[in-house]
């Protein structure tokens, strides 16, 4: 991958032609109130917020949650969570677009309501249909490099591999796969799910992820707003470190005075 190292300040994320100044996306579930959610959104400076279509009335501007989001500044990203297969996801996405005019969709197909792990087969199927239908599709996937390739080939705007199962706060347990996905990506890679601490977010960004999506870690923190600020700093730090070109990590120590330094050419 060719890396053009620009200064962090001018390093905007572009998805489907739209520029984002923040590399932190936020999910809106699980908060103790819509007001706390809004304050957290404001505190982290995110410009991309995902809402579950099953939770909101997408056609109602007075909806408790939607009314709290300043859509002049924030890209609304409706998601299909709760869909069990491609048919359901496509149907929900189309109705949402018809009602709201929003063409962006976070494609989530999670037939197992316990683990909420994404179904790769149905996700690819739905992505192909929705892309052809003119949607800007951001699919939530397991950290499967071949699936990521298939999706970007199908025309999705990003790929969103999970760091660990959703809501677990376990961090980047799929690191090796995500590294491959980032290495081969032709679209932005957004690490979604499982990021429980700012340090996890920084880790994803240091690896070269284009952005991270955070929800549970903010929603269930004792102080969601302070946690949102902490994540903002971590995402920026991780991105800046990535752009700075970190030194290679080695598995053994490298002596600064090499043992073979005495050998001289004679």
């Amino acid at each position, binding site marked *: 991958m060719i890396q053009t190292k620009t200064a962090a300040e001018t390093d905007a994320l572009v998805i489907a032609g739209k520029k984002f100044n923040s590399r932190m996306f936020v999910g809106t*579930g*699980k*908060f*103790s*109130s*819509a007001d706390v959610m809004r304050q957290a959104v404001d505190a982290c400076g995110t410009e991309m917020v995902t809402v579950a*279509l*099953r*939770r*909101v*009335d997408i056609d109602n501007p007075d909806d408790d949650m939607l009314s709290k989001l300043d859509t002049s500044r924030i890209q609304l990203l409706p998601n299909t969570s*709760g*869909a*069990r297969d*491609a*048919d*359901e996801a*496509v*149907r*929900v996405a*189309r*109705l*949402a677009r018809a009602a709201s005019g929003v063409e962006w969709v976070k494609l989530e197909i999670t*037939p*197992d*309501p*316990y*683990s909420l792990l994404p179904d790769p087969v149905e996700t690819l*199927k739905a992505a*192909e*249909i929705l892309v*052809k*239908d003119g949607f800007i599709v951001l699919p939530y996937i397991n950290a499967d490099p071949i699936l990521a390739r298939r999706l970007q080939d199908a025309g999705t705007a990003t790929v969103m591999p999970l760091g660990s199962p959703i*809501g*677990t*706060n376990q961090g980047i347990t799929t690191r090796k796969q995500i590294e491959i996905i980032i290495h081969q990506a032709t679209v932005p890679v957004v690490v979604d799910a499982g990021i429980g601490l700012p340090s996890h977010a920084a880790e994803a960004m240091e690896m070269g992820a284009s952005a991270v999506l955070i929800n*549970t870690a903010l*929603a*269930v923190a004792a102080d969601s707003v302070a946690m949102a600020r902490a994540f903002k700093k971590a995402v920026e730090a991780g991105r800046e470190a990535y752009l700075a070109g970190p030194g290679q990590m080695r598995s053994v120590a490298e002596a600064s005075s090499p043992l073979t330094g005495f050998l001289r050419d004679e």
Partner: protein
Amino acid sequence: MISTKSEIPQSHVLKALEENGLDRRPANWDSYFDDVTEANVRRQIAEPIAPFSLRRLKTLISPAALPYLEQMAQAAVRVTRQRFGNTINLYAPVYVSNFCINRCKYCGFNATHDLPRKRLTVDEAVREGEAVAREGFRDLLLVAGEDPKYVTPEYLCEIAARLRKHFSSISIEIAPQSEESYRIMERGGIEGVTLYQETYDRELYREYHPKGPKSDYVGRIVMQEAAARAGMRRLGIGALLGINDWRYETMALGLHAHVLIKHYWQSKVSVSFPRIRPAPDVMDNFPYYVNDRSLVQMILALRLTFSDIGMSLSTRESGEMRNHVLPMGITHMSAGSKTNPGGYEVDVDATEQFVISDERSVAEVSEYLRTRGFDPVWKDFDPAFLDSGEAVTQDS
């Protein structure tokens, strides 16, 4: 309804209950928990929630765990917030009929009781639904006694269709139906089924359900599986607390939940805790009354065994009890409920199935949730998920 064994496809639930000796209270019940030590309890509390283990459930509901309820509560609060966030889903029951051909000894609608029987007309049921919708509810539970002459899939589908615009989610708590009937209702926009086994003990079951179609233990226990095969997304299970030792019922209930989750993994299991309530003309000296401490232990043990199942606490419980238990694992609550057909608006004096305990209004309950730092969730599904008949994958 299914009445003969030959019609029943293999039941994973029944098989598991039998294999684990939990289709009746084990013969060695008096010494059943003797092998559980306090050290076992401490270890289970300290360990993260792993895949289902009957042994873990047994340990956490054991008498040896009683001194550790506070630690269990702390752990249950943490796991519930992590998995479900700071939210509580609210739903409302609408009773549509109290006609019943069964003779359950604990129930106010028992066929032998001389009470004015009423089945709401579709129009009346719609008025009742509109009344709860005005309170803010978007999640509706239609409840009826068992009488196939009065309560049919077609009747319920018609109500569901008429109320669709008010509710994002509609489920039923009615007599067992055939898989085909569940399929009809699933297509009709009903996506959840609640059905309590009452007791998992075969012999005791017969004693409490002497007559009527409900006397068929097997015919009832296989029904969640039929509903799941028919595509129902939400499966509510429970044991009626008060007619048998709650520790036994919790073991069987936990196994029931586990088997449903394992084999019907696309449907979400939710457990309820129906503690027996006073009802018109029924016995009031239940032999296994479940006290508050026991109910709390049951809720905590199940939450610490299943991090992701739904748990519902209805207005059967007092406001005080619900307020205390709220953060310990509960995901769903009803509020302002009426347990008589027409009770919200159409016929407010009709006879109730049981007397509710938490009499706070819907507004009071939702305001209380906010003061405790919980967002009351009214809508958590969208009818757009339901198949309207078009195959969307073919028209692109």
